[in-house]
């Protein structure tokens, strides 16, 4: 039964999205808060991630945009006095924070009960030694290493463990002296070498090539257990599960294997004493039933979010209820509403998760996949067979792939190496190997250890493709083959390309439309199926849907699981797809807000999206959820079935925005700004001529068609220049070039990106202010707006920049001019709905950088700071329903919001942690304060900066930046900091009377003190390293310092304006003075 003593509960969020901790925790936290509210419990949430759904109005009772750190959490506890705390819903951040609060007695002091899994159980799973000991108690096998002091012991250990083994030299960095041994002979050789590095050698059983299997397990306080889902990794052990393609349920396990691991998982969870949810990861021998437990996560995780979406079982919701004291038998299955929550979902489909990487955005990053996570997002594809699911998934990751086949052929130097040393492209290397017949399934299995079953399925796709290619023209395509191709996940486009239609027609879109018409004439149409948790065993009224072609062949009518009303009351919202750099939780927030308003306005809300980490793909958030592709083909399939009143393309970022024109050509009713105007805005030339027409300036630019044109252009405007293709988001392949050589090298890369749209070169203006204008307009008239100012100067991508709203340092005249220009643009483009304009201001000259006729990344931030929901307003405009005109006084705020970016350089080994015009941040936070310093301090601490204790290392770039940093340097000295500085900065500071100690660059060999050494010895608390210009240079001195700071977890700032602001903030405002105020207290 529910615990009635718990009246107020504190939930810890996970903060900014970062690699390894992303949108899944918005989903799990939102679910938990919903579960608590249902019980009438007051909820308090701490999460500085302002773009999340969980930090929206009405989700929690009190929201604190504060760092999820013990100091701040204690102060919130002191103020709010909650009865209970939930630690399992905010990832590792919340868990670590909770454990610390428990250990330092804060929870006890304030009498706060940890709901759900006890902290001791968390500690038992987190501490490696305790964990192994705990599982030893119940004879469950874990991965252990044996420490040996001589070769004899090593031999003994190896024969006990069984070959193959890995041996590692203890205390040796970088894997020196480690390796695999298949037999004693190899061990003798390797161990001898290892002992030369180290007095101790660790011998460990090698599990290379073992399967990786995961179970999601739930337990209530009555000791009832279920496993909700199991998952199998496509990639064998050795690749982090977050980096693996994952299939649910497992495909290669027999009944005996499946249930052996399931029973073990239950045994483990009972012994550890989890109350709620956890996952158990196994390594599983592909040649026997031998296993090892890799780890247990005593909290909701990325896998649990995936399992929830894969099965329809709301793990986080149920876990929260169990934390409140319920038994599983007291809860209902939220899909059927009639059957019990104590059950295990039966799937009648297969789910495939594929990670999304953005490694090409980082300079110097090591692209090989391994035991640490590098992916920034993921997709989930649902199909009635593996081929369909994986082909859908490979399209969903959004890297211009059309499926497993019919992609632009990958250029690979050495296929064997590319298979053996997996990178983000390995699946396409397999495609190449199969298609070019370089290796057969058996050989690929030998090289990769990927289970033959998966490879045979991929081979099947290639075989179908071969049959298609054998058709010399679309006219000889027979119905049976088209149906087979569709059943196994081919798009109309893949078919068109395979039969040579794309080449023939010279246009990809026309070609796919031809195939579409053909297959419709064959009556080959996809059907809509439900995810109902029980494989149709009982009737279910679920709105959780996917589409498949494995739904034909019965005399019964088309086998749709649902009926379509066709009453002109349906509004479809297109989601934002995989989280990636430049598009993440902020667009999920926008989508969810649009759905809410659509529902409230009396329409049926329909979402199409495929990202398992999101709240918009929670089937509770809309009237109908299509967990499916956002390709033109699939969106049209759904539109044709739903006959909607309208489609919203402006709340999901660039993916839906790019579909606008194509949908419009098919007479799809697009809500809000017309597709034609969207195109006028997206097309640089048209946009530019419009600006000229209305007399608005923009940086000089030119569309590139030949090198001569460019040279002429640059002769006129001079370097530096900004180079980019049109139709981009987050500056993919965008770069600043400072000289001719760089320009030529970069253009080769950029020109490859998009053939359909020209590459653009524009004058890059240095030391200009950058300003974001977010707004909502109706019929060309602006009805709400928010102007935010970047702390950094232009040159830092707006997605990486620190935003200040309302602006604190803009001239009134600048503001006035921006408003005037935006009004003109809104009118010219007949904007109805959300939009965003980016400006540059130097003195009072305003230049337009770009305009997007859709919601922007900063919509949730400005909406929440202003307490005016821009998306709600925009959706009302698009639906043409009445809305309240915002009060003008509303835009006058007595407080400041700061949005700071979260970087994940620490996960991206080798990458240069420097900011540029290409976006690099993986997430953001937004904090509110009574003044800039207070808000900035909260925000900077939230994204992982720390206030330095004593020492700061300065390398402050070019003269201009050096001068900018001078005041900050004085402030540091005044506050008792010791400054270290590299050569130029040292001299500059000395000349300006700032006391500092010179340290030497890595290239100044033999001179001391060496900057790198000081970092390694932890003698530096903060590094300010400002690159001299915007040019990318690898492996130079600056890079080494920056990389070392990241690797050693020392806060690093690479921008002089941001560094100055941060230094000023912590020098003038002690942490104790930061007011602990909830969102609602800022009025």
């Amino acid at each position, binding site marked *: 039964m529910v615990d009635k003593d718990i009246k107020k509960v504190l939930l810890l969020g996970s903060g900014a999205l970062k690699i390894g901790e992303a949108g899944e925790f918005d989903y799990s936290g939102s679910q938990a808060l919903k579960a608590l509210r249902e019980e009438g419990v007051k909820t308090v949430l701490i999460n500085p991630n302002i773009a999340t759904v969980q930090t929206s109005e009405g989700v929690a009772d009190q929201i604190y945009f504060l760092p999820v750190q013990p100091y701040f959490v204690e102060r919130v506890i002191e103020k709010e006095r909650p009865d209970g705390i939930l630690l399992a819903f905010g990832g590792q951040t919340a868990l670590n924070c909770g454990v610390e609060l428990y250990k330092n007695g804060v929870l006890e002091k304030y009498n706060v009960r940890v709901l759900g899994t006890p902290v001791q159980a968390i500690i038992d799973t987190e501490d490696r030694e305790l964990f192994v000991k705990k599982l030893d108690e119940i004879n469950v096998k874990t991965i252990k290493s044996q420490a040996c002091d001589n070769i004899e012991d090593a031999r003994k250990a190896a024969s006990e463990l069984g070959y193959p083994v890995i041996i590692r030299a203890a205390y040796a960095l970088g894997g020196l002296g480690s390796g695999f041994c298949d037999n004693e002979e190899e061990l003798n050789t390797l161990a001898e070498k290892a002992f030369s590095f180290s007095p101790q050698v660790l011998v460990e059983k090698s599990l290379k090539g073992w399967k990786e299997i995961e179970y999601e397990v739930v337990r209530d306080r009555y000791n009832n257990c279920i496993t909700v889902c199991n998952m199998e990794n496509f990639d064998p052990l050795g690749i982090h599960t977050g980096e693996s393609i994952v299939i649910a349920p497992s495909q290669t396990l027999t009944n005996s294997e499946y249930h052996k691991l399931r029973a073990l998982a239950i045994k483990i969870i009972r012994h550890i004493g989890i109350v709620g949810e956890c996952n158990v990861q196994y390594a599983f021998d592909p040649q026997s039933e031998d296993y090892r437990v890799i780890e247990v996560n005593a909290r909701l995780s990325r896998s649990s979010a995936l399992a929830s979406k894969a099965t329809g079982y709301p793990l986080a919701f149920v876990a929260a209820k169990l934390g409140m004291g319920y038994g599983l038998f007291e809860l209902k299955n939220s899909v059927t509403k009639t059957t019990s929550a104590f059950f295990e979902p039966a799937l009648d489909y*297969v789910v495939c998760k594929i990670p999304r990487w953005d490694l090409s955005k980082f300079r110097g990053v090591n692209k090989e996949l391994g035991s640490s996570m590098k992916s920034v997002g993921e997709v989930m594809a649902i199909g009635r067979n593996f081929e369909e699911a994986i082909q859908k998934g490979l399209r969903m990751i959004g890297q211009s792939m059309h499926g497993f086949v019919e992609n632009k052929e990958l250029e690979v130097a050495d296929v064997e190496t590319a298979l053996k040393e997996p990178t983000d492209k390995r699946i396409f290397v397999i495609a190449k190997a199969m298609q070019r017949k370089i290796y057969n399934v058996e050989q690929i299995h030998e090289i990769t250890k990927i289970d033959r079953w998966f490879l045979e399925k991929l081979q099947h796709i290639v075989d179908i493709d071969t049959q298609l290619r054998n058709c010399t023209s679309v006219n000889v395509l027979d119905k049976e083959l088209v149906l087979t191709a569709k059943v196994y996940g081919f798009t109309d486009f893949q078919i068109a390309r395979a039969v040579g239609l794309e080449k023939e027609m010279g246009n990809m879109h026309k070609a796919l439309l031809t195939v579409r018409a053909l297959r419709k004439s064959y009556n080959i149409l996809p059907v809509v199926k439900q995810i109902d948790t029980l494989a149709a*065993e009982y009737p279910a009224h679920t709105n959780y849907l996917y589409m498949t072609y494995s739904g034909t062949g019965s005399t019964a009518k088309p086998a749709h699981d649902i009926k379509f009303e066709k009453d002109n009351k349906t509004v479809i919202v297109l989601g934002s797809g995989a989280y990636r750099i430049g598009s993440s939780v902020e667009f999920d927030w926008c989508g969810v807000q649009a759905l809410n308003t659509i529902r409230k306005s009396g329409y049926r809300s329909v979402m199409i999206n495929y990202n398992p980490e999101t709240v918009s793909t929670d089937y509770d958030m809309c009237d109908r959820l299509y967990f499916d592709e956002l390709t033109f083909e699939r969106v049209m399939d759904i539109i044709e079935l739903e006959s909607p009143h309208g489609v919203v393309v402006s709340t999901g970022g660039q993916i839906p925005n790019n579909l606008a024109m194509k949908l419009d050509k098919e007479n799809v009713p697009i809500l809000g700004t017309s597709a034609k105007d969207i195109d006028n805005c997206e097309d640089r030339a048209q946009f530019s001529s419009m600006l000229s027409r209305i007399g608005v300036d923009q940086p000089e630019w030119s569309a590139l068609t030949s090198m001569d044109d460019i040279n002429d252009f640059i002769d006129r405007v001079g370097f530096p220049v900004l180079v980019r293709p049109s139709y981009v988001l987050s500056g993919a392949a965008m770069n600043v070039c400072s000289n001719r050589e760089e320009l030529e090298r970069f253009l080769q890369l950029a020109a490859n990106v998009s053939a359909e749209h020209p590459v653009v070169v524009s004058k890059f203006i240095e030391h200009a202010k950058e300003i974001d204008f977010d707004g909502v307009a109706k019929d060309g008239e602006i009805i709400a707006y928010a102007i935010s100012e970047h702390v950094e100067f232009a040159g830092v991508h707006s997605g990486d920049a620190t935003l200040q709203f309302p602006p604190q340092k803009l001239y009134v005249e600048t503001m006035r001019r921006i408003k005037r220009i935006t009004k003109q643009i809104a009118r010219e483009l007949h904007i109805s709905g959300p939009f965003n304009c980016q400006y540059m201001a130097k003195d009072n000259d305003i230049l337009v950088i770009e305009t997007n006729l859709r919601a922007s990344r900063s919509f949730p931030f400005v909406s929440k700071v202003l307490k005016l929901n821009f998306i709600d307003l925009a959706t009302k405009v698009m639906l043409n329903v009445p809305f309240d005109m915002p009060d003008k006084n509303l835009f006058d705020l007595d407080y400041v919001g700061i949005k700071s970016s979260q970087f994940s350089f620490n996960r991206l080994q080798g990458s240069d942690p420097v900011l540029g015009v290409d976006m690099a941040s993986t997430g953001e936070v937004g904090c509110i304060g009574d003044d800039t310093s207070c808000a900035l301090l909260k925000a900077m601490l939230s994204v992982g900066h720390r206030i330095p204790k004593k020492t700061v290392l300065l390398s402050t770039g070019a003269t201009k930046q050096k001068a900018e940093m001078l005041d900050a340097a004085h402030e540091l000295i005044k506050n008792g900091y010791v400054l270290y500085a590299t050569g130029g900065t040292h001299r500059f500071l000395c000349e300006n009377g700032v006391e500092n100690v010179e340290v030497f660059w890595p290239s100044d060999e033999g001179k001391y003190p060496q900057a790198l050494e000081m970092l390694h010895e932890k003698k530096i608390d903060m590094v300010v390293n400002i690159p001299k210009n915007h040019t990318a240079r690898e492996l130079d001195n600056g890079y080494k310092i920056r990389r070392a700071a990241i690797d050693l977890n020392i806060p690093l700032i690479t921008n002089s304006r941001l560094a100055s602001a941060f230094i000023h903030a912590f020098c003038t405002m002690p942490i104790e003075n930061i007011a602990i105020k909830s969102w609602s207290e800022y009025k």
Partner: protein
Amino acid sequence: MENVTLILQDGTEFHGKSFGYDKTVAGEVVFNTAMMGYPESLTDPSYAGQIVVLTFPLVGNYGVPAFSFEDNGIPTFMESDKIHAVALIVSDYSESYSHWNAKESLSDWLKREKVPGITGIDTRELTKVLREHGVMMGKIVFDNQPGNIPEAEYEGVNFVEEVSCKEIIRYAAANVTEHNEAKTAVLVDCGVKANIIRCLINRGVNVIRVPWNYDFTDMEFDGLFLANGPGDPDMCVEAVENIRKFMECEREKSDSAVRPIMGICMGNQLLAKAAGATVYKLKYGHRSHNQPVRMVGTETCFVTSQNHGYAVDSKTLGSDWEPFFVNMNDGSNEGIRHKKYPWFSAQFHPEACSGPVDAEFLFDRFVELL
């Protein structure tokens, strides 16, 4: 692959391709929502007379293990000595399989045992039809033999008679230690799954497996075990009479001398009938690995493996009896127990195979009572 059509009693047709033995057949069409365990399911005698539809679409992935037998005659991996299902229907048969323990493909096995298999069927849609209509008869016909229409009956056929052993078989207890003398159980074979026998002998029990209608009451044994089986429990009149006779004898004894009874699936129904209760056919039969049951009067629940179309009507139980387990989805009976004597049964399969093993403790309980 030949084109085949499944024709249901109500006239609905589904078209697919044959991947098993090319033969027309008819049978009661039932679905199972288990996601793995096709070798175990196909050899489960409870499927006698039935065309099995698997709702999980990908089947055949891990091939089929060797059909070998242990020295005591129990199959190593299978649940009986042959495939009992009439035919298998799947959505997407995996022509290539991958598993270290596989000896042949599912297709080859079906062909060897002359059992049809159909792939390419929208098994979700088929399941919905079966769900709404209740189970019904179906025929598998080959498109190139339009005149060849098979006939079969399910109702009224005594499938137990077909699958039960014809004479007594004895299995010696395994894992017997010097200090631990083996007890003996009589197992009434209505179509017993091999894993029930494994579960008993591995717990140190000698098993005397007797034909379903054999009068065992005069035999020497320590406890009675009522196994699972196919079809309608009302057909098993003789078995019910023997159980009743056994219970009458035991009632004569002092309480502590009363020998235990445990039943599984059909065993539950037979025990209930012997106790005076009636059984009825469920609208939605339970055929899956995810059936939730709760032990009545406790907060303890189990995920169970089930395969039955009939259920005990709890309301008709005699006053000496009470429900032991209840289904948490539809409230149907999942087991009964005697209020005084060590007699109990489960409608689900504690021996699993295939399915979850959470309720195996019932065997421990039975063995402790011997």
